[in-house]
């Protein structure tokens, strides 16, 4: 194991801090999630480090709880997306034939519709609840994971060690999970970081449009929506979640870049 480069280290530290904050939100937040503790849009003070929001709730507490919701939803959707996408992708690559054709063409079809538009279409008839959001986001995004894992696995499926396993008479399950998956893992993990960021942006966008997390629950996109009217009076409360999202996104990107760099240099690829 070589030394971790500085940008990746910073990325890891920031990402870790965000996840810890999400985990221990009730301990960290100075006030409750929907506790009205002051005037509307108070400036920052000793009691309210970041001031108050549009109805006088402590903004720092809202941001911490909001981060918890955002990170939880994005993580759950990413896991669902990865599970569905990679299992189906590996399966399609190993089985091949008409199963592969059918799955691949279906994925092409779904990807022919912009994700946000498709999500909006579905959310116009489904009740907007947490599980529905996670499932819709996760399944729509799994098409991308499917494509990646299928491409990676199709390259691996023709390698000698897979052929050897086939000749030994191993079953499909063994070939997928013991031969191909371990070798396909590193590009998938790097992709996972990017998908997670995409999910954070996606759920924030939906909430901002009023079609994601419903009040009084908080999430970063929703906090922007609640405080956006302050912008024209020069109140910057709506910009704070932007800082949170941007730093988290950059941190995860740095980590993903590092993982990708490592895997390409391991394979002896031309980089740099």
């Amino acid at each position, binding site marked *: 194991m070589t030394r971790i480069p500085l940008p990746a280290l910073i990325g890891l530290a920031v990402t870790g801090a965000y996840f810890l904050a999400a985990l221990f939100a009730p301990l960290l937040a100075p006030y409750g999630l929907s506790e009205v503790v002051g005037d509307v849009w108070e400036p920052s003070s000793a009691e309210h480090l970041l001031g108050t929001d549009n109805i006088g709730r402590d903004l720092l507490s809202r941001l911490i709880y909001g981060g918890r919701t955002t990170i939880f939803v994005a993580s759950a959707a990413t896991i669902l997306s990865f599970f569905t996408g990679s299992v189906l992708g590996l399966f399609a690559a190993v089985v091949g034939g008409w199963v592969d054709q059918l799955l691949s063409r279906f994925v092409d079809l779904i990807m022919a519709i912009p994700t946000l538009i498709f999500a909006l279409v579905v959310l*116009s008839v489904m009740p907007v609840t947490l599980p529905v959001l996670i499932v819709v986001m996760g399944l729509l995004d799994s098409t991308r994971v499917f494509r990646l894992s299928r491409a990676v696995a199709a390259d691996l499926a023709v390698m000698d060690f897979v052929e050897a396993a086939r000749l030994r008479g191993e079953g499909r399950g063994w070939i997928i999970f013991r031969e191909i998956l371990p070798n396909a893992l590193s590009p998938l993990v790097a992709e996972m970081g990017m998908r997670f960021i995409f999910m954070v942006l996606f759920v924030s966008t939906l909430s901002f*449009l009023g079609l994601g997390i419903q009040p009084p629950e908080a999430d970063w996109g929703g906090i922007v929506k609640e405080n956006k009217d302050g912008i*024209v009076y020069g109140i910057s409360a709506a910009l704070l979640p932007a800082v949170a999202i941007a730093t988290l996104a950059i941190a995860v990107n740095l980590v993903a870049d590092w993982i990708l760099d490592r895997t390409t240099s391991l394979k002896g690829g031309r980089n740099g």
Partner: protein
Amino acid sequence: MNAQIAMLLAQRFLLGLLLIVLVSILIFAGTQILPGDVAQSILGQSATPEALANLREQLGLNAPVHERYLSWLSGVLQGDLGNSLTNGRDIAESIGARLGNTLFLAFWAALISVPLAIVLGLVSVLYRGRWPDRLISAVTLASISIPEFMMSYILMFYVAVQLGWAPSVAMIDDRMSLLQKLHAIALPVAVLVMVVLAHMMRMTRAALLNVMQSAYIETAELKGLNRFKIIWRHAFPNSIAPIVNVVMLNMAYLIVGVVVVEVVFVYPGMGQYLVDHVAKRDVPVVQACGIIFAGVYILLNMLADIVSILANPRLRQPK
């Protein structure tokens, strides 16, 4: 050879048409077959059975699914998108003007971002690894990490409210002159440019770098040509195909980015119309907007493919 190209193009075109038909089925299915009755979700849980039955009748929900789809599709093909459930207005009429506004916004964003992205891509390859390249990379990484609506509010806060250079709400109407309109949409255009610029620039840079590793570039270097000439005369023509492809894909992305930006700046376009009616659960409007957005997206992707077939002779040979 020409007949072969024509064949390929015709194939690609037919594939695009087929895709649009399938997408229309998918969008229709998405709103009609999913669990959750449309009538129920419009009226809410407390609706009386009579009201539900009436609404189902009015929406034609009692007919079999494929009949409903066919009648919807034949309506769409004749330009009849049905009526909005919430205000009863003709959808095609409401969309007409809004689609124009959305395309106006997207057009100016494209006009600014495409040349800018290509020039910046060239610059960052020319100064590869030195500060201009690093600066451009850092800025693009940052702009990828911020969602569109955040970027919009940041610009609104600093440029519109604090500096007062542009209006914070992008209202346009037909009485305005072109210059007035452009001033009104300055901020939304700026946001859209930033959103697509980063990606386009990165891909331009990657495409150029890819070509720069070819043997003929090394030859050109060994001949002693200067770097600018190598990039401009030898690398750039060979990377046009991937670059055009990226540009098209980003134009498609622009169509979606427009949805959020329109909501932020209260711009009277398609995106705002769609989002409004998703919240109101106005299914016919959502279907109509969905099919139009998806159609434009598929069209642009098709154009990207066609351009790369025309620009890259290698793609003309079947594998």
